[in-house]
């Protein structure tokens, strides 16, 4: 088993109060346990945002609120891309039409590995 890494942090007194309150509410007994749960929650949020998923809460009445944190927005891919036009020569368009209407080749080994994240 890997040795545990020591983690030490100075926190302002107002955050200490919040920390103690959260630990009490969640019935978490140690700082280490609290940190492990906070990491798990943060890791989940990061993975979701990396996939482009937004994070919402929903009230019992169905009202939604989105979680927006600058750190999470930084890692989220932008799926709403701006538009940029590209100039085409007529010959290029003709050649593109010919290539695009043919049966497309099977994916290459490189492409398969790229899409599998390998």
């Amino acid at each position, binding site marked *: 088993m890997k040795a545990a890494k020591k983690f030490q942090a100075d926190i302002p007194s107002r955050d200490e109060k919040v920390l103690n309150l959260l630990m009490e509410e969640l019935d978490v007994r140690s700082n280490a346990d609290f940190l492990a749960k906070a990491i798990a929650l943060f890791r989940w949020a990061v993975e979701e945002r990396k996939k*482009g998923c937004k994070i919402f809460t929903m009230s019992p009445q169905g009202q939604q609120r989105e979680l927006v944190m600058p750190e999470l927005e*930084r*890692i*989220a*891919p*932008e*799926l*709403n*891309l*701006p*538009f*940029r*036009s*590209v*100039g*085409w*020569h*007529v*010959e*290029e*368009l*003709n*050649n*593109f*039409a*010919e*290539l*695009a*209407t043919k049966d*497309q*080749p*099977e*994916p*290459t080994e*490189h*492409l*398969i*590995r*790229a*899409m*599998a*994240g*390998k």
Partner: protein
Amino acid sequence: MAITVRKLDIADAEMVQSFDCGEPNLNEYIKRYAVKNQGPHMFGVTYVVLSSEVANRILGYCTLANTSICRDQMPDEILKGLPKYADLPAILIGRFAVDKAFAGRGVGHILMSYALNICLEVSKLSAARYVLTLAYEGAVIWYKRYGFQEIPGGVDLGRRKMFLDLAVVRRAQEIGSQDLFSQKAS
């Protein structure tokens, strides 16, 4: 090397200054225009590759934007297989570069993997059928490894148009996930 890919940030303005892929236009773009084009100008979204082992360096970057291919100007006799819209929607890989110091270490492959996954996600939200790139002469062979097809007929500022059908990318994703599944099962 632990690598992450994320959107370019205003805070990266200083970090981009040391980027050198050997191609002056691509160096100039990341140093002078990428942040502006992502923010106020809205011309493209830039993604950067970073490593926890190399502080304050961008290993590579690419820029994505939506674009379209004008169907109206194509000859009718060869248009039978294409949808009947005036413009064919596509995603443009406008810039793609790896810093010379990190070339040959798989940075381009990671970035291409990230970019094509985004292209697939974008195509689910707004229509997109093709990935289009403007490849420098020396990179044409590299793009061909991923299945990009060269479109003959013109070279603009030393760059050639190449395309990849997103249906092929989707098929690659299916095959890739089947491979992963069979590896897990065995």
